[in-house]
């Protein structure tokens, strides 16, 4: 074994000695900015906690622990437990997105649930949504997730990739069908193939869409062949879409009427730009 250990040490050295990050200076500046944001959030959390402790003591509230957006645990006080239903689902959606988008920084996380009355009028199934600004070493994007419970017995949608040259859907499209009928679709959309990436995961009971809007800095090379990768790869998006966390959330949603259809949902990235 010692011979193998020596050889492994040498092989690791040979493998890694010439490895360099693509943009070391950018990595440092992004880390610096991320560190500053974390420090600011912690300071704010301390102030908020102190105020919340006082408020909760005044009304005899309870303490709950919530996971912060950077993965560090932040104690937050609430006077009453969160209401069941939509409020609770919003928390579950936020927690799921926080857990799945790592490593990286998540800011401005907010619920994007559809409006039940409008859905009912339009005959579409309601969706639980969440969106946030996500940043990592490769850039900044707005990431949104929508979970839709399908009507009972709706079956699987017939998913096809759009034909090439059809305007807004020229990017690469990939469909994977599982043996049990589950479908995974990934798609990138013009104007530049990697500016807008989406993943759709559908089972017999629910559908999840994960969309990434890449927020490029002005002057960043764009066009149809961007030279850098988007903050999240297609593989990451499909992995997020398949998480069991969404299945749990979908299971807690009311079953829509049999006539309801499943509609695509989108979030404008403008509020985070």
């Amino acid at each position, binding site marked *: 074994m010692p011979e*193998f250990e020596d050889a492994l040490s040498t092989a690791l050295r040979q493998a890694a000695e010439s490895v360099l990050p693509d943009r070391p200076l950018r990595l440092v500046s992004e880390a*610096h900015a991320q*560190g500053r944001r974390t420090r600011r959030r912690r300071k704010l959390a301390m102030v908020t906690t102190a105020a919340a402790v006082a408020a909760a003591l005044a009304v005899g509230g309870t303490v709950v622990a919530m996971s912060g957006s950077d*993965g560090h645990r932040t104690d937050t006080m609430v006077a009453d437990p969160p209401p069941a239903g939509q409020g609770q689902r919003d928390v579950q959606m936020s927690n799921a997105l926080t*857990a799945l988008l790592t490593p990286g920084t998540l800011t401005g996380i907010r619920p994007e649930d559809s409006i039940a009355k409008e859905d009912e009028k339009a005959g579409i199934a309601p969706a639980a949504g969440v969106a946030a600004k996500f940043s990592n070493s490769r850039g900044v994007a707005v990431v949104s997730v929508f979970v839709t419970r399908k009507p009972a017995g709706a079956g699987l949608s017939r998913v096809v990739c759009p034909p090439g040259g059809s305007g807004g859907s020229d990017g690469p499209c990939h469909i994977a069908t599982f043996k049990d009928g589950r479908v995974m679709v990934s798609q990138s959309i013009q104007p530049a193939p990697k500016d807008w990436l989406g993943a759709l995961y559908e089972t017999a009971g629910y559908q999840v869409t994960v969309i990434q809007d890449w927020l490029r800095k002005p002057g960043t090379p764009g066009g149809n062949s961007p030279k850098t990768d988007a903050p999240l790869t297609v593989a990451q998006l499909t992995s997020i879409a398949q998480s069991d966390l969404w299945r749990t959330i979908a299971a807690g949603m009311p079953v829509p009427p049999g006539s309801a259809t499943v509609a695509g949902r989108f979030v404008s990235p403008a509020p985070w730009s």
Partner: protein
Amino acid sequence: MRQAQTKAYIEFAQARTRPLYRSAWLLAGGDTHLAEDLVQETLSRMYVVWGRGSDKLGNPAAYAQTVLVRTFLMHRRRRATATERLTPDPPESGRQPAGGGTGDVALRVTLLDALARLGPKDRAVLVLRYWEDRSVEDTAEAMSATSGAIRTRTVRALERLRAELGEQAADLVPR
């Protein structure tokens, strides 16, 4: 943070980016995207502790390596909790072999693939012991484990790596 502290942090970060990236690259099994994310996360955490006084860190470079390993292990744990599944045909991967070599490239790719198939703790223990040349005690401290547990894990991780490499394990040993 005072201006002098910030300047010292930037100098530190610039000096440590490459060594951290190499370790992160091995921990990530050659996934350059994940390696960059791990380094950024590590350096941002270093910034947070830097504000409390870099003199309290003792050896900031070694501390940063420890933060990197813990960030990696935490990342893997979270992904496991979130029940990560592979798609039948992943459309995109960030894994890349190191450039620069010629005849050994295939062996490097094989080694990286074998490393990537190990569990995160096995991978971490091998990188710390055989890439960073850390002692059992230092490795135990970095991985929040006992020295005995690290010794056992090292032996098992080496066995697993040998098994993953199969016949190509012999190619690692110079003849």
